[in-house]
């Protein structure tokens, strides 16, 4: 067991777990940040997508050891105070989720896309979002939500 200090959503979190523990279990089961979801555990589905230093990463295959040196970890809980980030607002406008289980990951990936590329084409959206699975088949509305958020100039927020 070892102690780790993590910078998550601009707050310091202390956690004592074994070396090599998945960052996903640390977030969900030890720190109670359950907006980030477990689904495949092998970086195939993207339900656990978070940001590390503003880049989208799949938490399930990251080890806590490698992210306790001041890297800035952002989860869905840290995206906005009141769930009103422009991407979240666009998501509600498009009524994008169905079961909703994959949508934290979808939203974190979409935010990263728009931060990199504020005006993506439909094709660029599909390529960037291709790693995040949705079993309910909400993809068309995800594309629509990203287009709506893009029009609202998410990158300036």
């Amino acid at each position, binding site marked *: 067991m070892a102690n780790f200090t993590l910078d998550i959503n601009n707050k310091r979190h202390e956690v004592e777990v074994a070396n090599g523990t998945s960052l996903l*279990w640390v977030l969900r089961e030890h720190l109670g940040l359950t907006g980030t*979801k477990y689904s495949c555990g092998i970086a195939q589905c993207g339900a656990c997508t978070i940001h590390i230093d503003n880049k989208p990463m799949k938490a399930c295959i990251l080890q806590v050891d490698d992210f306790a040196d001041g890297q800035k970890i952002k989860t869905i809980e840290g995206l906005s105070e009141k769930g009103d980030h422009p991407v979240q607002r666009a998501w509600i406008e498009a009524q994008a989720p169905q079961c909703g289980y994959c949508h934290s990951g979808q939203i974190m990936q979409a935010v990263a896309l728009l931060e990199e590329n504020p005006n993506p084409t439909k094709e660029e959206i*599909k390529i960037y979002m291709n790693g995040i699975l949705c079993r*309910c088949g909400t993809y068309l509305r995800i594309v629509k939500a990203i287009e709506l958020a893009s029009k609202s100039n998410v990158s300036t927020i």
Partner: protein
Amino acid sequence: MSSVPKIVNRREFLKTSSGVALFIGVSGILPQIISCKDTKGIKEQLQKHDITAWVQITEDGEITIYNPAAEMGQGSMTALPLIFAEEMDADWSMVKVEFSPQEVAVYGSEGWAPGSKLMFTVGSRSTNSYYPVMRKAGAQARYVLLNSAAKHWEVPISELSSNNSTVLHAATNRKISYGELVPVLAMPEIIPDFSPEQLKNPKDFQLIGNTIPRVEIPAKVDGTAQFAIDIKLPNMVYGVLERGTLHGAKPTLTNEKEILAMDGILKIIPFDYAIGLVADTLEKALEAKKLLKIEWGDAQAIGYNSQEIYPTYEKIAGQRQTGKVVQEIGDVNAAMRSATKSYMADFKNDYVYHAQMEPLNAIVQVSADLKSAEVWVGSQQGVDPKLGVPDLLGIPHENVNIHLQYLGGGFGRRSMNDFVIEATLLAKEIAPLPVKLIWTREDDMGYGTFRPLSLQRMTASVDKNGDISGLSHSVVGDGGNLVASGSRNDHYNIPNQLVEWREASHGVRLKHWRAVGHGPNKFAIECMLDEVALGQGIDPIELRRKLMVKSPRALATLERASEIADWNTPSKEGRAKGVAFVVHGSLGTGICEISVDRSTGKIKVHQFWIALDAGIVVQPDNVRAQMEGGIIMGMSSVLKEQITIENGRVQQSNFHDYQLLRMQDIPERIETDFIASAERPEGVGETATPMVACAIANAFLQLTGKPLRHLPFTPDRVLQVLNS
């Protein structure tokens, strides 16, 4: 003091009987389902006042309506309370929704047996079966409020009307809001058992049929929506099971001491088909699971190879002995004998897996005396609303509380309670600690329950007028109704029909998968029609138009789909359209446009159009979402998904070798148009999915002249067909 508020105790529930409503006492029920983290919720809860068992109100007019169905993305959390609010004349902006207690006598809708009640979110039954229940209950809540106002003002109730959470007395020009009635709520001794004629005229609906945002979506975009897997309780421990990949094989653990010596491992619990482990953290449980050394016994499935079974199925289909008859009209053999032309084809379907994004899990806490249990679970509910837990523990039903959570997908998998039983067995062994049982994705797939592999032998006869005179449909496969559902043709005027099922059994775990047998059977039926159309030189829409002559509602969907897809205008070079008609609750005709890459065999679906008769459409935008999701999940299963069994063992383990459709493969658009209707709402969750296989195959037949008859249409299979 006639105005003393008479608040009905929460534990007295409405039950209707012989035309009047009575209050009955039900003890031991905790109706509120509050997040363990949500202390604020508990405070607010105390300020709510009961109107009936279905609805509470605060003095500031906030109304809480119960949703009795599971919410797995299909929208029941909004649709059912919306129907209630419509009849209650509630101000929707003031409505909050919570799951109802799992008490079937109070919150059930009509079950399959006449007079029975059921809380079971399966078969697209929620909106359809709850439509009369929610309307009547909403009207009764309104009656309680009107009665209270009548008493308060000392006027006859017949002089009152209501609108948007306000009671009006036109004669004296007085009005009072529902919230203001809280201090004077007066429970009538008798609440009318409203008949459908006493309810609102659908033309007066203000909520039903409008675009209403779904109530739980904000929580699903900020990460606060609580799924069972998110539950954390004080002193909670973690459970996992190693089940192997050979269904039903008995395990013998050979390194028990070594595992028990590991840090954090609390207990090993053997099952007939698995080894269970409980540990103080999830990661320790998973680590130990990997190190289990298990010798597995035999099982029925040993020696079974799914991809080699089809010749056996063809032989079964060819046997003279008829199977179990599902539907028989006229004399199909006589029709075949007098046919001027006949067609025969076999359609094949590999196993598919549910792949709901939230792996199965449940949290169970059994009390130290083993006399009561709390269960947190995302479940489609069941015939037993307590999910088998009372029987397992040998305790009364009222000693088990089911705390229903959002489901991270259901698709039929969560209509089983195997994972709840497993969690309860672990919790019993480690009582009173709460246990969170998690299935890994590998567990969920390797020990999955699949849509059965099947073969459909279709034979059609055409008479001297060029009409289809007979259709024979022989289903071969495991799982009874799982393979036979959707094989009937009640909307096609074919005078001689025989549908029958011939059983096979392999020891593979099977379960309802969205639309169940409709997927494979509509694939076979609709493709057979297009093969006949091609052979007879008839347009596929024209052929169906003739067949639907006695089914005006079905025909209306065909005509509308044909219009919105512009069927009569040829597609551009390299593309073609295909049509399919499906009845599953709603009636729908789907048309798709595809192209195919002849070098890779990859099919591209460009557009999908659906014309749907769902009766009254309660939430149009949500129904569109169901059509979109149904088509995309259908495309995923039709173009990509395949579980294979070798020597009885599931060969796929996770999403790297069980591929789902991703965003780059979606159509440009999916357009849904509704046929206006005043009929009772029908289910919409499973109407679109079965359209996909047949619409794509029929488009492919138009494009290439060649039939696709084996699901999934993977590129290698498509190439094989193209090169044949």
